[in-house]
């Protein structure tokens, strides 16, 4: 018997919008680990992380009718997660993401990662393990979304709401900073 292909996130979200609220559980199931992993990079307390992830899903449910099914559900959910984390960090007055940043002001040429991508990813996973915590949040977030969550520059730009070229320049600078921190700590690539 031919098996029915699994519904996409956008199709499931569309059904939830239409009133099938039980299907929201599928979306939670698909994204819970990702949201936990993403939140863990900004918060350390396990209870705080759980609270934030719960809040992300509750907000997603509450606002599900604002989701445009022609766009990617993952980007929309990460946008909610981004806002939630920014709010939590702001309340605690620590690691605040900048309200204004010259990076978003002027154009930058997009950094081309394609040539070195494979080697890069291996080195990056080592560096991310060792020094991600030491990066400022504005550099940490694109690195997580690009290298750990595998999102494209355009999707990251939609989540953080900054120009696409800014994502490129932040990732480039983050890599330079991590490389320097990594080498200063006595590791070699």
């Amino acid at each position, binding site marked *: 018997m031919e098996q029915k292909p699994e519904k996409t996130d956008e199709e499931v979200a569309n059904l939830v919008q239409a009133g099938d609220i039980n299907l*929201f*559980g599928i979306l939670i199931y698909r994204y819970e680990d990702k949201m*936990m992993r993403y939140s863990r990079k900004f918060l350390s307390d396990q209870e705080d992380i*759980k609270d934030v992830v719960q809040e992300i899903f*509750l907000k997603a*449910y*509450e606002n599900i*009718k604002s989701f445009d099914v022609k766009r990617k559900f993952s980007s929309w959910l990460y946008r909610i997660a981004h806002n939630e984390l920014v709010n939590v960090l702001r309340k605690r007055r620590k690691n605040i993401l900048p309200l204004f940043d010259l990076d978003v002001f002027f154009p930058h040429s997009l950094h081309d990662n394609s040539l070195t991508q494979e080697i890069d990813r291996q080195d990056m996973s080592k560096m991310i393990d060792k020094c991600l915590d030491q990066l400022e949040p504005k550099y940490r977030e694109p690195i997580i979304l690009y290298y750990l969550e595998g999102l494209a520059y355009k999707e990251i730009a939609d989540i953080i709401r900054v*120009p696409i070229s800014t994502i490129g320049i932040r990732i480039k600078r983050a890599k330079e900073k991590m490389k320097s921190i990594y080498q200063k700590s006595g590791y070699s690539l």
Partner: protein
Amino acid sequence: MNNQEQKKSISEAVLDKIKSGGVRIKPKLYFVLKTILVVLGGLAIGLFVLFLISFISFALRASGVWFLPEFGLRGFGMFFSYLPWLLILMAALLIIGLETLLKRFTFIYRKPVIYSLLAVILIAFLGGFLIDRTPFHSGLFLRAREGNLPLAGPMYRDFGILEPNEVHRGVVLETTENGFIIEMPQGEVLNVVISPDVHLAPEFEIKKDDAVVVFGEEHDGTVNALYVRKIDDNFRFSPRSRPSFPPLNRMSK
């Protein structure tokens, strides 16, 4: 707690809250209204920015401050000191507010801020100057002068906060032995005295109905002119005077 248990607890907590009615889906109408409010708010801010910039331009022209840089370095310095900085600051803050609202839209935030900001500033200035070229502000000014503009009346009568003491704009009512008499936009009449040490260009001649800007301090209704400049400006401020818009001409010291 292992991963499976944690998974169960978060999804259970969320689903329990949903099923118990602790959290409800906001209706589509809520988001439609929110978008409409943002668009209307943006439009209102945009229109107010256009009004402010066109008013600043109007106030600078109507008070004569606009022409100060043509009176040399001192005039240039005075031009800056007479600029309505409070209104300029207000316009700048509103432009920042407008830019913040626009950043909600994908096609705006995906591009560097400098592009949208420059576009907003350019549109605001072009639009403002274009509005100033229409009879909009001069019409309101005339109503204010007649006392028929309740709220914005004082603002128009004083050209905002521009009350320059050394620059006077008006239309020549009549010439005198040592100068001329002008009627200013507010209806005030000034006696302009051109002192002998002010060098007049031979072709320079002031006639009745000429629109002029005079630079010099005023004491008891008399101005000792340091500079006089005829202006070709389509700003009709006085139904009594009806200036005939002479060709641009200049008199220098």
